[in-house]
């Protein structure tokens, strides 16, 4: 099984971190993984995306042309990556910022109001974690536990962050799982 996931949004929305956490989790599960970023020219306000591959096979090209899943944190990202998604693929849309619906009917759409949920949780910055929860629930590429383990390792120096981020991830996952 090979997951090829593209996560995209504005710079500053935290898509890179989402991807890294998922990749890290994959590594912890002894899978073959790669993460590759692509930045727009701007420091802020530009678009940024990353490609995450989690696979049972050795990984050839780390780039993704036909993703198995796409996370769109803003409208330009949706417009850019929706067409490339494989038939049957998973499409996570940050519905807090994107009103537009998926145009394709051959994919599974999940609408995640991540900014609103993050607002609810009291920290706008964890919007990306809400989405992360959603994508791992939807793809099952890695387990929630591995992601939390990855988080703990990457933020070993800031254990205080764990709780709110875990909450956010769980909210996102719950949304997908319909809980």
């Amino acid at each position, binding site marked *: 099984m090979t997951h090829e996931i593209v996560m995209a949004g504005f710079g500053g929305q935290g898509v890179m971190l989402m991807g890294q956490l998922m990749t890290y989790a994959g590594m912890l599960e002894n899978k073959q993984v790669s993460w590759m970023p692509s930045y727009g*020219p*701007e*420091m*802020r*306000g*530009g678009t940024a995306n990353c490609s995450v591959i989690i696979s049972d096979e050795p990984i050839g090209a780390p780039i993704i042309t036909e993703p198995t899943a796409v996370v769109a944190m803003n409208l330009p990202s949706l417009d850019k990556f929706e067409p490339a998604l494989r038939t049957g693929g998973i499409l996570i849309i940050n519905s807090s910022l994107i009103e537009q619906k998926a145009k394709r009917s051959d994919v599974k759409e999940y609408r995640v109001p991540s900014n609103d949920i993050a607002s609810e949780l009291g920290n706008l910055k964890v919007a990306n974690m809400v989405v992360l929860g959603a994508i791992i629930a939807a793809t099952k590429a890695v387990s929630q536990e591995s992601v939390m383990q990855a988080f703990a390792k990457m933020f070993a120096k800031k254990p205080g962050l764990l709780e709110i981020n875990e909450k956010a991830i769980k909210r996102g996952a719950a949304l997908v799982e319909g809980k």
Partner: protein
Amino acid sequence: MAEIAFARPESLHDVPFHYCPGCHHGIIHRLVAEVIDELKVRDRTIGVVPVGCSVLAYNYFNFDTQEAAHGRAPATATGVKRVHPDSVVFTYQGDGDLASIGCAEIVHAAARGEKITTVFVNNAIYGMTGGQMAPTTLPEQVTVTSPYGRDPEKVGMPIRVCEMLATLDGAKFIARVAVNNPANMAKAKAAIKKAFEIQMSGLGFAIVEVLSTCPTNWGMTPLEAVAWLEKNMMPYYPLGIFKTPEGVAK
């Protein structure tokens, strides 16, 4: 229809800037554009823009521009000006661009008394490449290449560009300004205007250093950044006119 008292200057295209929220580059662009409008020289202005966050300035300025190699804007501008001596040529450069890699070019443009104007945006950091140390980074300031704070023992104290260039005869007008509040913005604009006038009267080289924020790489909100600039940059980089043909002291 209502009269419009304040609007975008003609010398700025009507497109959004790519700059981060609160970045002073936008203000400085506008001041330059306003000055060019007011001097009525848009038709014969050629801007030379640098490699740095303002690398895309050619998309914003509504007159001829050249994109120079990193640090070499003064040389490029020299080439332009020597071909069209009747044109108005300026460089717009960051502190990494001007004070680090382009140090020789700015010193020699000033020494030659090259009849160009330089707008020097000093934000004490490399903005575009993600917040590395600049020659103007302050002591103890943390950047991604001075992660333990700039250590003057190892890398020296920041360069004060105006003070250094003031030793060169060819530099005829040298001023340091800031755009941290409305009063200083007015002074900044006046200095930029003066720097263009010096060029147009054929006197020699003119430079205006503008203290500027980089909220993103400083890791602050735009308002915090302005406060940091006032508290930390202004004492080390005093504002004022360092040199002018009228002999006005700072």
